């Protein structure tokens, strides 16, 4: 059994590598000292400073708004795309659609950001819209980036469930619309919720695509964090990171529960 013990030790080591820095970050956010290397007592002073940092708060509110819009758009479009890939095997251009969906998943953010900026510039020159770049163009870019993730999650969920239930509903006299609303949509629901949450966090986290597609007056939270980090991290950022971590852990826990419920429902 030495081999399995080696694997377990390696896994624990790997998880320590992933979580060690996060633990350090959370611990230092409660440190009264501004130095990471000395502990002078428990304090919430960085959280108070965070609450009074107008730049960070304004940027966070803007980012939350963009993320909500982008995640909703990505969920509608990605849900449709995932449904099409899982349930429409004869769809014309299915492979092309899968390819276009995969592109934002794997390609570097830099290429997504640059190409979308060129689109917005070209459209403004030819059609006059958008009139300058800002929160709206960032939301479109984020929806594009995130819809692929939603499609993957929804497709996997529908493929795992099979079409037996829809078939049964139609045999019992339900029309295709009724079968979709009463069977497929509830089947997709947990994946749509996880997809929305995933899209929301991806949007909140992005700095590169936003830097390309934003304009003056629309500085998102990651853009502010990034320009601060280039000068050197501040303790306030540790407090901010801890708040974001707590929110992300909550979202992940929600997805975990939804996933278990989905598994139980699928049998």
């Amino acid at each position: 059994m030495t081999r399995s013990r080696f694997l377990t030790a390696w896994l624990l080591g790997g998880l320590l590598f992933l979580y060690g820095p996060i633990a350090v970050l959370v611990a230092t956010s409660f440190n009264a000292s501004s130095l990471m290397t000395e502990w002078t007592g428990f304090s919430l002073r960085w959280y108070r400073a965070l609450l009074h940092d107008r730049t960070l708060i304004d940027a966070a509110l803007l980012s939350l708004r963009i993320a909500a819009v982008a995640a909703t758009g990505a969920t509608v479009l990605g849900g449709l795309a995932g449904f099409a890939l899982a349930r429409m095997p004869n769809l014309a251009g299915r492979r092309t659609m899968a390819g276009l969906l995969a592109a934002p998943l794997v390609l570097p953010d830099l290429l997504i950001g640059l190409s979308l900026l060129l689109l917005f510039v070209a459209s403004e020159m030819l059609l006059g819209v958008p009139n300058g770049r800002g929160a709206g163009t960032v939301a479109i870019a984020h929806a594009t980036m995130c819809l692929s993730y939603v499609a993957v999650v929804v497709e996997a969920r529908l493929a795992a469930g099979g079409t037996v239930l829809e078939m049964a509903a139609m045999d019992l006299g339900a029309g295709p619309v009724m079968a979709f609303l009463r069977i497929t949509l509830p089947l997709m629901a947990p994946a749509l919720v996880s997809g929305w949450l995933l899209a929301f966090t991806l949007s909140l986290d992005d700095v590169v695509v936003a830097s390309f597609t934003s304009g003056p007056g629309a500085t998102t939270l990651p853009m502010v964090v990034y320009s601060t980090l280039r000068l050197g991290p501040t303790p306030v950022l540790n407090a901010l990171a801890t708040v974001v971590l707590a929110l992300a852990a909550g979202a992940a826990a929600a997805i975990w529960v939804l996933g278990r419920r989905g598994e139980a429902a699928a049998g």
Partner: protein
Amino acid sequence: MRRALAVLPVWAWLVGFVALPAVLIAVMAVSISADSVPPFRLGLSFEALAAVFSDPYYRDGFLFSLRVAALSAAACLVLGYPMALAIARSAPRHRRLLLLLVILPFWTGFLLRITAWIGILRDEGLLNAVLGALGLPAIRLLHTDAAMLIGMVYGYLPFMILPIEARLSAADRTLEQAAADLGASPARVFLSVTLPLSLPGVWAGLALVFVPVAGEYVIPDLLGGPGSLTIGRVIYEEFFQNNDWPQAAALALVLLLGLALPASLVRRR
């Protein structure tokens, strides 16, 4: 037919916001840089594209990114494969939790986790404090290639673990059992049964790390040194600092075409 109509918005969005922008990169790559807003005029010039291959600055950027991406993918494989195997072999009730633990960091804000590494690696940071307490000399890590590589592995490790774990946990365990019963040593079982069964996951994992790392901008900029000039940084600089859109687009086009092949490995099942 009505169902096909329902997919129309998806097509419209994908063509408008994924395919068309990619074409515009090519259009910009042959445009001409100009002192206007936006800083280009349409044309058919291959000057920027030729510079990608003739200018050693750009060539070095590509070669450096290629090395960094290959090293990062290899390091993620070495670190991640045993982790994937351990998760795939764990009891089913632990497996879901372990997978969640691997995915969770991906959710927690990439930029903010880089903050932690800056605090740990910088000269007066945690690592050097620990080394000092142990009586060891301090080392300079932040703003070096080593710190950049640590950041890449840290950021992309989950992308390596997940596809390999999926393959390993779907593989038929009785094949390993059979090989062992027929007298194969544990090493032989691994090399001739376990590893080949997981290879599609390994390829997907390598592509999922290599492709985004090859165009990474944030990690080299924050953790790397002034000399860690990845192609991502070069493109960013051409675009935002030099305001040379055609040159940035030409570099991006070559990067896009270069990554198309490894990127296509991801979708293969």
